[in-house]
């Protein structure tokens, strides 16, 4: 497993923090040391389309260690409001830094 991954962001659901066209670099080791927490921007696998990656922010961590993720730009985002909470196994990693277009 490569510890760092690069993604290019499509769509606008994380605006204004991350805009369509920006790159993000994801750290995959952070969550080996600690649990994901509220406010983290993460890249995850789409719960229904496994080959698709999404970028979202964690809004709620439940007692059973599931995570509700939403886009910052709520009107433009399909997220846990549609597909429910996600498990840690769907999380690729935490957005470490992003490169603006």
């Amino acid at each position, binding site marked *: 497993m490569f510890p760092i*991954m*690069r*993604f*290019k*962001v*499509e*769509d*606008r*659901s*994380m*605006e204004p923090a*991350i805009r*369509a066209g920006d*790159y*993000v670099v994801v750290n995959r080791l952070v969550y080996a040391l600690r649990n994901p927490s509220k406010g983290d921007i993460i*890249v995850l696998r*789409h719960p229904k389309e496994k080959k*698709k*990656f*999404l*970028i*979202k922010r964690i809004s709620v961590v439940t007692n059973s260690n599931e995570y509700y993720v939403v*886009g910052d*730009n709520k*009107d*433009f*985002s*399909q*997220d846990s409001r549609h597909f429910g909470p996600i498990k840690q196994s769907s999380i690729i990693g935490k957005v470490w830094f992003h*490169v*603006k*277009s």
Partner: protein
Amino acid sequence: MPLLYTLFELLDKIFPAKIAYAHCDIPCGIYDPHLAQMAAHTVIRMVTLINELTPKMTPDAKPEQMHEHVQKNPDLHDLVWKVMKLGSKVKQEVNLQSSEDLLETVNKIAEIFWKTKDMGTVRYKSPYPTARETVYPAPKKS
């Protein structure tokens, strides 16, 4: 463009980055079937035209007809210009007034459009969350 971004773009050419979707298939609930209908009509039209095409034919441009529309509707030129300006403005600013002006200008063009098709129009409050007055085609009043 920042140097780092350029570097990432170069890197992309060698090892393409995976795509992370923010996922907004249908933003804000503003949709109706007419775009799909128009797209389907466009495909049918294009297929028909391509099938009719012979090597000597040129595309079906009708400048005289366009000139006639502008003569009959002297406002049209100005309205199109306004749509271009407002279209840029609403991309640059978060400005409700400009957005409403844009809709109203597009509405006026829609009225002219349906008039050139010999159809009447009505104005109704849209069924979308915007709930603004919108022009729809209607049978012509005799």
